[in-house]
């Protein structure tokens, strides 16, 4: 439709639609539009659209939000120790409801990891990630009792909320820190596509400063900027205490978002788990299968179809269920090793 208006001054057309022209100016423009009846019709319809939109009433409130935010209103000076945000509480409740509806196997399953082989391999990211895993290889057969107790400490919501102050600048730039529960923290690194290299480094440093002290179970990081993803993998992940880090790459170069999951081997006692991190294909999971079943990861197997990515619908569900799955990884899969 934009082609229709090429011969006209867009600013004038907008002013016309917005009702900012006086009657004489309107008549002048309408006369000009006579040369292109289609454009004229479209502009007049856009005027109608504007009037119709302006007559749409506000939606009714579904609930009293004041009741939901009452803890913040009642104790404004104690925001650092406030409870989980109401919106997140609702998400947790819905998540809990969905968990009950999942098959039993899925409840004890591990996330399937996929790599978009071409792009990751060519950029050396696979090696970076695996180097990190290998570099942290502990002594084999380490008894549970010798595992650093920090690895098992639960991060409560107040700790996470307090940490948010440390990355206020990051949040103001568009990055968002969420806690999906007591043990999972996610960092949204969207909207950083226009950063230069110096700013990218600053973003990573800010994120590291905030997230490094968190002995959380898992970090879930999303980014849509290729260079930032690379920096995240290379500079941020290795310095964190998290048991697991999941980086979802939304780079436009990929046909679909790709997840890369890094799991610290220090909490594993099985010698096999010290091997390089593997991608496991699962014949039960098809690309178009929205009700994907996550199977326990079988370590030691060779890479499979690295072009397989979860569907977008599954990714959406995965984002909602990220906390529950990572908790499952820790509580069931790891304990079984």
């Amino acid at each position, binding site marked *: *439709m934009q082609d229709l208006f090429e011969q006209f001054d*867009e*600013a004038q*057309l*907008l002013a016309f*639609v*917005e*009702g*900012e*022209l*006086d*009657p004489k*100016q309107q008549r002048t423009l309408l006369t000009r539009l006579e040369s292109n009846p289609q454009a004229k*019709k*479209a502009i*007049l*319809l*856009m*005027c*109608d*659209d*504007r*009037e*119709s*939109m*302006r*007559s*749409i*009433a*506000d*939606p*009714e*409130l*579904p609930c009293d*939000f*004041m009741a*939901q*935010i009452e803890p*913040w*209103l*009642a104790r*404004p000076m104690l*925001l650092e120790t406030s409870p989980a*945000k*109401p*919106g*997140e509480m*609702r*998400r947790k409740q*819905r998540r809990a409801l969905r968990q009950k509806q999942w098959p039993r196997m899925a409840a004890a399953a591990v996330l399937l990891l996929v790599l978009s082989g071409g792009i990751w391999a060519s950029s050396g990211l696979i090696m970076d990630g695996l180097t990190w895993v290998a570099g942290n290889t502990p002594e084999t057969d380490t008894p549970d009792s010798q595992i650093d107790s920090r690895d098992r400490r639960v991060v409560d919501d107040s700790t996470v909320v307090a940490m948010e102050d440390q990355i206020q600048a990051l949040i103001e730039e*568009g990055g*968002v820190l969420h806690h999906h529960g007591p043990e999972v923290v996610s960092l*949204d690194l*969207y*909207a950083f596509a226009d950063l230069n290299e110096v700013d990218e480094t600053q973003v990573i440093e800010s994120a590291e400063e905030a997230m490094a002290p968190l002995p959380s179970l898992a970090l879930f990081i999303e980014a*849509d900027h290729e260079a930032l993803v690379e920096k995240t993998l290379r500079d941020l992940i290795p310095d964190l205490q998290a048991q697991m880090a999941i980086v979802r790459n939304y780079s436009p170069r990929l046909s679909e*978002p790709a997840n890369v999951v890094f799991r610290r081997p220090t909490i594993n006692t099985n010698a096999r788990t010290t091997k390089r991190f593997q991608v496991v294909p699962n014949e039960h999971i098809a690309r178009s299968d929205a009700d994907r079943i996550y199977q326990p990861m079988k370590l030691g197997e060779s890479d499979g179809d690295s072009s397989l990515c979860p569907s*977008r*619908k599954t990714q959406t569900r995965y*984002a909602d269920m990220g906390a529950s799955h990572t908790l499952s990884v820790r509580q069931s899969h790891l304990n079984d090793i």
Partner: protein
Amino acid sequence: MTPLRELQLLEAHRNGDPGAMGELMQSYQRRVFSVCYRMLGNPDEAADLTQDSLVKVLEGLDSYNGRSKLSTWVIRVAMNCCLSHLRREKIRKHCSLDDLVSTDSDGGGGVNLGNLLESGEPGASEHVQRAEVHSSLLKALNSLDPDSRALLILRDLNGLDYLQIGEVLDVPVGTVKSRLFRARAALREAAEYELGTDLDVSESSLGEGTGTG
């Protein structure tokens, strides 16, 4: 609520008045929900983000620098929450007719199209036609990219001027204007797809210049 009253309540809050913030939030909740609902098209998600946004407003009041109206700043917080959420989701939501048209018929929100179609009451056809137009436009709105959707929501559904929109979206006024025109064109295109046929156009609807900018 007038801008002056907003600032008075903010000042009262900063001076330790426990009820001041409640009155402010009470006045904002409907608007914040409206922004979230129109951006997301899903009432549950909109409710979640409304709560998150209101908490962010409470937590971020210290950073409010007074350069824009407080209400504009509040909308900015809500819009940033929505855009951030949509970027993460990266899906286009297509609302069902029932999602877009409220079932409350108390005159406050919307009308149930289905009921109207069945009512057969006098004047129902006019309501039906208007409801159809609204519904199609909202569907079309929901099919647009988030940035275009945000512009139209701020301009048409919230009545912000170009400067205020620029403050919310953190873009210059010139950018607001050029993007707004393209958003309107995109809405028109999407609406034609939804409606299937062109609406009747009345040149008399133009009237005198009635700028809102």
